[in-house]
């Protein structure tokens, strides 16, 4: 069978139209939910949040960082530009030198209006029913648009193929190269009724600089303290409604 060029063009057009229109069929399907269908462990009605009291956070303490790395099997590659940081300590110095340097941890702010979720083309980044911003690593295509959109530099691409350590925590999925990851507020621990590893480590180190709890529960410590104490969020001007609050800045 031979085809003339006219037929080839026609068939090409038809195939291209099919490819173009196929995604459009989703327009008629049930609308994608920004929350994951498999968020059975989440407790609707809860809204997890964190208060960091910077007056209790000292520059020489990295307990929260170490606990996070151990709990979540986060490796250090020795490549500062490409290391994965779910949580990091930063030092702030007032440019006018009117106050002493402040140390504080920065992590994913689990925003109410998360730009990372808004830009993710496959909805791999999603908001769980309890407000946690999570990443479905099987759905992430590694486009990195979420890293571009996040103003907190809270996301990292896995640049290296990584073997899990021998004593890896089996409750945390093994990471794949080429996908993006970030702090989960230790969702797997929350689902077991435990605190995030960083919060627990901070308390163990006798600092108690990190207060974690349900912002919607009027009896929770975090709710009470946010009512009484002067706190602020990072880049509140962006309207993202972050749920990590800071005291003492």
């Amino acid at each position: 069978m031979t085809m003339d060029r006219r037929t080839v063009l026609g068939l090409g057009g038809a195939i291209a139209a099919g490819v173009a229109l196929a995604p459009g069929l989703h327009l008629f399907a049930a609308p994608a939910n920004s929350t994951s269908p498999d968020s059975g462990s989440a407790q609707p009605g809860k809204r997890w949040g964190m208060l960091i009291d910077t007056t209790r956070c000292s520059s020489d303490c990295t307990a929260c960082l170490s606990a996070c790395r151990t709990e979540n099997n986060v490796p250090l590659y020795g490549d500062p530009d490409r290391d994965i940081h779910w949580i990091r300590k930063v030092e702030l110095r007032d440019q006018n030198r009117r106050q002493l340097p402040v140390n504080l941890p920065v992590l994913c702010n689990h925003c109410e209006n998360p730009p990372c979720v808004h830009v993710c083309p496959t909805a791999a980044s999603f908001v769980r029913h309890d407000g946690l911003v999570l990443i479905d690593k099987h759905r992430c295509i590694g486009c990195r648009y979420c890293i571009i959109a996040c103003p907190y530099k809270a996301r990292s691409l896995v640049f290296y193929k990584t073997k899990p350590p021998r004593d890896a925590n089996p409750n945390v999925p093994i990471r794949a190269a080429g996908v993006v990851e970030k702090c989960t507020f230790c969702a797997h621990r929350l689902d077991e009724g435990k605190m995030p590893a960083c919060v627990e480590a901070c308390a163990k180190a006798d600092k108690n600089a990190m207060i974690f709890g349900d912002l919607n529960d009027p009896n929770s410590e975090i709710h009470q303290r946010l009512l009484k104490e002067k706190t602020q969020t990072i880049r509140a001007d962006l309207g993202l409604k972050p749920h990590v609050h800071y005291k003492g800045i």
Partner: protein
Amino acid sequence: MLSEYSAIEGRSPGYWKLFAALGGLVLMGAAAFLYVEHHGHAVTGMNNQIVWGLPHVFAISLLVMASGALNMGSMSTVFAVKQFEQFGRFSAFLSIALLIGGLAVLMLDLGRPDNMLLPMVYMNFRSMFTWNVFLYTGFMTLCILYLWTMFEYKQYKKFVGTAAFGWRLVLTTGTGSIFGVIQGREVFGSAITAPTFVAISLTSGTALGILLLFFTFRFTRRELDDRLIFGMRNAMIFFLMLVAYLLVVEKFTRFYDPASYDVEMWILTGPWAWLYWLGVWGVGVVVPLALLFNRRIGNSVRGVLTASGYVVAGAFCFVAHTLLAGQSYPFDLFPGYTITSVFQDGQAGTYMPTLWELMLGLGGVGISGLIYLLGIRFFRMLPARGEAPKGWELPWNP
């Protein structure tokens, strides 16, 4: 009036040499893709602050030029500039070729290219990327239909050509909006970014069209009336002034806002200032305009070709500057404070592309080039002679 269309013979040693060279680029791109896929993105120069690098510069440049390459078709179909009607097929086909090359690079640079079809399955309609999936596939469909109507169903040409023209404006707006909608990084987040991308597509698409038409006609020993080149030159001058206007308006608006002083001064004097002044302004706007406005150079075909080369390079610089300077600017988490950490907080991001990224980007150029080369050999894309209508004179010359 105008001559018939014909495919090129494509039997000369020159054709096969060019074919081999472009095929070599494609193979290089494939090798780079496999290498990065095997070793992870650590072998690129990208890092956790600059996550889009040289491959994205190539990809987005090709996509922007794909939109602009439709200029000649749109000029005749939509704006009734009949002397360019003969290049309509060439124009639509070049758009398709550039689009495929750009999309290929974008797809092959994904962290998980094995998941590249997921955006077709799971969609987040708030994402600019998702909209771009529709815009790119829709544009390609319209270009193929446009081509088909030009070959066979001429009665529908105006309808489809007009739809393609509208679509390409939305398409490039979508490409520019990938950066324009981002508020979290100070350099991005401007409503004027998308129109500037549209203007850059107009300049670079016209320039690339001029270059390819001239050299294709020259190498296939076809006649091409110089007046047609000069007609496109006039359009390019107008488009270049549009780019200059938008660049100035953007800086004027941003400098009016005291909150933007730091970031704007950083752009004009910081580590990427050389690319802004030399690349975006010098190569992309000032030099080509100076050449085209010069009475002697602007009225010579060689001068127009040189200016076109500068314009294409300038578009590349514009995309590179938008991406790289935009990502390099330090995150301003706590305005009024100096911030330091082990994660380079408070520092400008650094980026040095590796050879693998260059190879991957050039692979996309190779794909576009090969498609073009095969297209003009197997289909009647080009007129046997590029003729200007009798008695037609250009309304204006430098």
